[in-house]
């Protein structure tokens, strides 16, 4: 938690005409250290961004190599390059790697590097949290890959449909490693996302109103909100699967009352926003790159930004379009079909505006622009094949065939990865101070373009031929061998093209032309500082009076603010700590709501819940609920004392809070022991499974809160908190009250069986 409270005061005097020499105090010592070791301890957002990009780049090569083995096995009918078991592990790892270890981190990396620069900040809101979030990435990657050492990589597909992913059908530790790895990666992603939200809301330079932030920042901001709200759905599903696999519960085991479809709901409540988590930052990149290389401002800024908000909202209401073949009924099918079709509108708005941006421009076909234009065309195709899936009866034919494989590769490879390649060519000069070689770039572009379309276009046709996805081999039906052969050949072209990029990067790092601060004549703030930027990002910030401050600086006679009015910055910025606390609470609400939803689903109906509930002692729990609520009150007193500078009193109240929380936890432990002694185990029935899962996770949260209060107590050991930490107790307080509120809901739902009407 950095940031001086002092910087808050200077902001209101923001948007003057003279360059701002004053830079926000960093809160942590600025570093300009060199050497490999300094990268391990860095909290500089630029270095962390590069670490993200580098890590994801390495995993891109791993996931790509897995794809090449897959294509080798499918290159001809009846091949036996790998066994079916290994094949299933390969496509599971390929999907998991590309989504969680490549797509998300590489986009987070660019966001990390660019967002503070683009909004004129010296760093993200929480530099140390940022470093922690990055460290979760290699940790999660290692956990996932540890499965290989334990005998088998996960093999249930990247969406791990239950019951195939449950113990009876997948007894090797692969799926366990998958769960552990994804939980770690998910927590890291949420931490990074909270940081981005807080940075955008709290660290914008004077003059940078929300209506002036670059579109990349807008899209990353919305992505971060999606991440915060979507990942907990995955975490809830993973937690339940973990309880199934290790404690013998039956959440997803239909034979013992569980539900196979529930996993799909939970997974896709996460999974569909996830698609936009992977796509929106790419849209943001395109929204920066096309204008710069067309030498024109973005067309329809408000609409490109607004459509992103619309996509974000809609993305939570379309998950069941992944489940049309489940047989959910006409009403559900039509509802989700309409939602899915509606997403075409905001997406279309973006495409129209990007095209209109090129219209009337003076387009330089740099490699970055080539990739951006190819992105446009391919993304249109991927979007339109997506429309086919939203027309439910077509989905009934095409889902789970190679047609859907083609569709999502057009979106995620032809779309996201092409945008990423464009971004690499566009921002490499800023990040390294050197240009990438354009001649090699053109080779990379054309080979990727041809390779990509060869690989994936024919897969549409394979789907129409009836080839299901995820088959390790096929027989020699007419056309199948030919098209699979073409697809495999294309994939190797892609692999070769990627090696050209790797070579280009390595070569240009040492021998590339010196870039200078703004080689493209670009518009946004990151180009108004040296390449690479100094550790504090800016030695002098230009005035921010429009959406294109760097353009205004270089073309004062045609400056944007002369012709286009944008909302002035009112100069108010919220404190970062409560923003982070609220974001975290929003994430946690999703998690608990889904766990409790599972409870309601499983215990409504046949009266099984009532029987399970008999083993609970409601009056005793009422008493200890009171204890927990009391701890919220004592925390309130502690906070008031802190604000009045009464350190000793505050410490006493904090101690009381700590004590009350510990009493509550102690009672929980006693209750658990009693139930376990009485034979109420998670494996007994779904009531017990839900009870232990929900109360267990709530207990963990209470424990986390107690640790935070303990730290607060330690920080307040003097008479007062250091002023730059003034917001911390409020943030901890928010969290502690939240934990109490969750308990009250848990008590109502599980102990009292409310709301009865829902059953």
């Amino acid at each position, binding site marked *: 938690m950095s940031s001086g409270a002092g910087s808050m005061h200077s902001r209101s005097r923001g948007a003057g005409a003279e360059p701002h020499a004053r830079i926000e105090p960093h809160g942590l010592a600025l570093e300009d250290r060199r050497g490999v070791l300094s990268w391990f301890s860095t909290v500089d957002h630029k270095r962390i961004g590069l670490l993200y990009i580098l890590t994801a780049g390495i995993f891109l090569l791993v996931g790509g190599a897995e794809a090449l083995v897959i294509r080798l096995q499918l290159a001809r*009918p*009846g091949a036996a390059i790998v*066994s*079916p078991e290994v094949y*299933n592990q390969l496509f599971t790892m390929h999907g998991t790697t590309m989504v969680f270890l490549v797509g998300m981190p590489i986009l987070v990396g660019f966001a990390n590097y660019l967002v503070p620069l683009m909004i004129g900040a010296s760093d993200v809101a929480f530099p140390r949290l940022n470093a922690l979030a990055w460290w979760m990435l290699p940790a999660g990657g290692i956990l996932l890959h540890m499965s290989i050492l334990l005998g088998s990589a996960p093999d*249930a*597909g990247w969406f791990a*449909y239950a*019951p*195939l992913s449950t113990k009876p*059908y997948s007894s090797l530790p692969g799926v366990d490693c998958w769960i552990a790895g994804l939980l770690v990666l998910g927590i890291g992603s949420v931490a990074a996302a909270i940081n981005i939200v807080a940075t955008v809301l709290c660290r914008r330079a004077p003059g940078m109103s929300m209506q002036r932030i670059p579109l990349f920042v807008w899209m990353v901001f919305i992505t971060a909100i999606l991440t915060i709200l979507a990942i907990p759905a995955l975490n809830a599903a993973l937690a339940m699967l973990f309880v199934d696999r290790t404690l013998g519960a039956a959440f997803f085991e239909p*034979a013992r009352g569980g539900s*196979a*479809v529930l996993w799909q709901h939970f997974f896709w409540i996460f999974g569909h926003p996830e698609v936009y988590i992977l796509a929106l930052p790419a849209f943001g990149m395109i929204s920066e790159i096309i204008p710069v290389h*067309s*030498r*024109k401002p973005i*067309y*329809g800024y408000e*609409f490109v930004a607004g459509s992103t908000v619309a996509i974000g909202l809609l993305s939570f209401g379309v998950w069941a379009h992944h489940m049309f*073949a489940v*047989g959910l009924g*006409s009403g559900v099918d*039509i509802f989700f079909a309409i939602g899915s079709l509606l997403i*075409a509108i905001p997406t279309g*708005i973006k*495409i*129209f505006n990007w*095209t*209109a941006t*090129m*219209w*009337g*421009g003076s*387009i*330089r*076909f740099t490699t970055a622009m080539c990739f951006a234009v190819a992105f446009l*065309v391919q993304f*249109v*195709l991927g979007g*339109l094949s997506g429309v086919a899936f939203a*027309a*439910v*009866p077509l989905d*009934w*034919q*095409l889902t*789970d065939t190679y047609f859907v494989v083609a569709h999502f590769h057009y979106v995620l490879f032809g779309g996201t990865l092409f945008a990423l390649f464009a971004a690499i060519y566009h921002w490499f000069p800023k990040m390294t101070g050197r240009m990438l070689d354009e001649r090699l770039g053109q080779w990379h572009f054309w080979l990727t373009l041809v390779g990509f379309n060869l690989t994936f276009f024919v897969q549409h*046709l394979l789907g*129409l*031929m*009836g080839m*299901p996805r*995820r088959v390790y*081999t096929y*027989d*020699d*039906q*007419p*056309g199948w061998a030919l098209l699979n052969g073409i697809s495999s050949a294309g994939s190797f072209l892609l692999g070769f093209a990627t090696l050209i990029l790797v070579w280009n990067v390595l070569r240009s790092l040492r021998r590339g032309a010196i870039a200078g601060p703004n080689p493209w004549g670009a518009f946004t703030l990151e180009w108004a500082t040296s390449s690479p930027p100094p550790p504090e990002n800016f030695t002098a910030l230009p005035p921010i009076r429009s959406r294109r401050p760097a353009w205004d600086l270089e073309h004062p006679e045609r400056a944007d603010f002369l012709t286009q009015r944008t909302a002035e910055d009112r100069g108010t910025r919220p404190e970062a700590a409560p923003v982070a606390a609220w974001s975290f609470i929003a994430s946690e609400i999703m998690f608990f709501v889904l766990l409790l939803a599972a409870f309601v689903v499983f215990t409504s109906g046949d009266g099984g819940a009532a029987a399970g509930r008999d083993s609970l002692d409601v009056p005793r729990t009422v008493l200890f609920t009171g204890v927990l609520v009391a701890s919220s009150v004592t925390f309130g007193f502690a906070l008031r004392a802190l604000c009045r500078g009464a350190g000793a009193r505050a410490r006493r109240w904090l101690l009381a809070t700590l004590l009350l929380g510990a009493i509550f936890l102690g009672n929980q432990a006693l209750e658990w022991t009693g139930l376990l002694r009485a034979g109420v185990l998670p494996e007994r029935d779904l009531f017990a499974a839900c009870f232990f899962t929900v109360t267990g996770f709530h207990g963990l949260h209470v424990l986390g809160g107690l640790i935070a209060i303990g730290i607060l107590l330690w920080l307040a050991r003097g008479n007062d908190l250091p002023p730059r930490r003034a917001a911390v107790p409020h943030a901890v307080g928010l969290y502690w009250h939240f934990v109490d509120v969750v308990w009250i809901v848990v008590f109502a739902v599980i102990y009292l069986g409310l709301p009865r009407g829902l059953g």
Partner: protein
Amino acid sequence: MSGIAAIAAGPIFPVLAPESPQAEAIYDLGVRVVLVAAVIFSVMAILIGVAAVRFRERSGRDATIDFGSHRAEVWWMLGPLLVVFWLAAISAKLVLTINAVPAAHPEGDPAEGGDRCDILVTGHQWWWEVSYPRTDPKGGPAGDSGAAITTANEIHIPVGRRLRVRVESADVIHSFWVPQLARKIDAIPGRTNHIWLEANRPGEYQGFCAEFCGTQHAWMRFRVIAHGESEYRGWLAAMRRPPEPGDGAQAALGARLFRSLACIECHALEGTGSTAANGPDLTHLDRRRILAGGAVVNSPANLAAWLRNPGQFKPGSKMPDFKLDDERIAALIAFIAPGFAEADAAAPPVGAADGGNSSAGESPR
């Protein structure tokens, strides 16, 4: 030639060759969606292409500065919105048509378990169990016992009649898909789904498991065979007759082996008293066209090759390798597939999918 003889005869693009009213309706919707998509794609590609050519940088021309136009935004919001609503409407209409039909059918006599269906299809790792419930003998033609029928990996239907198919799963999620005849429907444990199955013309139609279901998801295919009405009745009658037991010492040895090797623990076979369903019911095995979920074409030689080493065709399959010698294989075949007994089981296997290039064996029927 393929391992599965009928596939070569089928259309290259089964999704584009519908053979039932339902599949035709979906195909018609597809044509409309593709046309709309093609128009939109062409317009966008042309716009992008023209922009790329016309507005390349050249000397003497500067980029315009244009921040956008609300009027343009409204137009390209409204245009697609109309298309989207039209697509939603025609999709919804077809969804209601396809989904509503099975529900409109009476749910049958509750005394018989309520949920009447003409065919019950159950997905197993990695094969399809197909059962025809017992019918009322009075309804059938003379001599038809109306007994229940159980077979595997093939579904026989009469042409032009809609059969109500119930789709279930015995283990993990599978997905039942006959591209030429019907929508895809998941087979989900703990849940029952229903679809109509109908074919316009006699023929063989390929079916696939579309949802990844484990090691041998690739070889979980099946076939739907549509017959003319009288041929269908003939098939039913033949399947309802108890299989003729094989004669001689070989078949007797096979019968002993069937018990001692524990075949009986997994496979049902009429006459042995076994009703196990861990593996396909072997009654009338010699009448089937494919083995092992389509990994092997059924023929005397292929059945022998399959028994000799199942892992060669379907590695990871739950059928164990019993390391059988030729004599025991011949005995087992004489017992479980007496119709094959005449043929020389020691002949080299043909039509196996493994290797992919061997020529197709004749279907036994």
